[in-house]
């Protein structure tokens, strides 16, 4: 499986700065979900949940972030050092989606602190991705497979 994914990646790899840019936007939306008063915090949570769902369902190349990156950011950057497999960031979007679904349900049920903690955990992963290009969601994969 790793062989096939690496083979397709060499042909259809993505610019690693795309997911990094997407993570920076994710940081902004999650910050809004934590800092704005209701109902705007809920609105921001819904938006981020939908964005994670798009990234998980359609892949990271077909998100609004990817469109913004291709249209406005990438033309200003040089060529990337190397291309990356799109499967890891897509999996991480799914991990983010799980946290946002918890946050959304908690906000709706009035459990504000639970919602904020779930958003805080997603924020940790998004900041790590945006600043260090480090994929926390990806690392959860082996741990789940190991202990599940």
């Amino acid at each position, binding site marked *: 499986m790793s062989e096939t*994914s690496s083979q397709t990646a060499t042909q259809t790899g993505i610019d690693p700065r795309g997911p990094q840019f997407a993570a920076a936007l994710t940081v902004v939306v999650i910050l809004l979900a934590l*800092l704005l008063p209701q109902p705007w915090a809920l609105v921001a949570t819904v938006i981020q949940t939908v964005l994670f769902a798009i990234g998980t369902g359609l892949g990271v190349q077909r998100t609004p972030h990817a469109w913004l990156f291709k249209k406005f950011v990438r033309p200003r950057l040089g060529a990337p050092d*190397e291309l990356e497999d799109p499967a*890891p960031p897509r999996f991480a979007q799914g991990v983010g989606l799980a946290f946002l679904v918890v946050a959304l349900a908690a906000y709706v049920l009035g459990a504000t602190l639970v919602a904020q903690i779930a958003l805080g955990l997603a*924020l940790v992963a998004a900041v790590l991705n945006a600043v260090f290009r480090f*994929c926390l969601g990806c690392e959860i994969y*082996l741990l789940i497979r*190991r202990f599940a």
Partner: protein
Amino acid sequence: MTGPDLRFNSPMSTGAWVAVVAIAVALAFGLFRMLSDGRFRGTKELHVPHEDHPREPHAWDAVTDALGETELGARATLVQFSSAFCAPCRATRRILADVAEIVPGVVHLEVDAEHHLDLVRRLDILRTPTTLVIDGGGFEIARASGAPRKEQVLSAIPAMDLES
């Protein structure tokens, strides 16, 4: 009054506190990972051999139990654990393959972690990529998690045994 008053001029909301803590944790963890990723550490199999208790080459036995007989490098075998959802695994593969090509007696072996979970548990692998350095006798002498730089790999390879 007990404990310090944590409020500033305008008291922060719980959400703002969560945000500040999350960002601080992420930055601290990210810096720690930047410093520790790719650094090879000597592992517990490294100890002085004793004539009465010959060491069992546990690490290489575990690898061959899982993968069948494969080539053990005369000087070192770099066993890389990878998974499908692992961006730095590609860079690690390139670096280790490079080292195996330029250093005689060094072999690079990549293991798909999710298809060898027993081996992953036996060798206590928690992250991908994790690279084990196994010496010519089959003993694990060092390991690094995260993508190593080429110099880090080269300095983890044992010197050629002059007697052999």
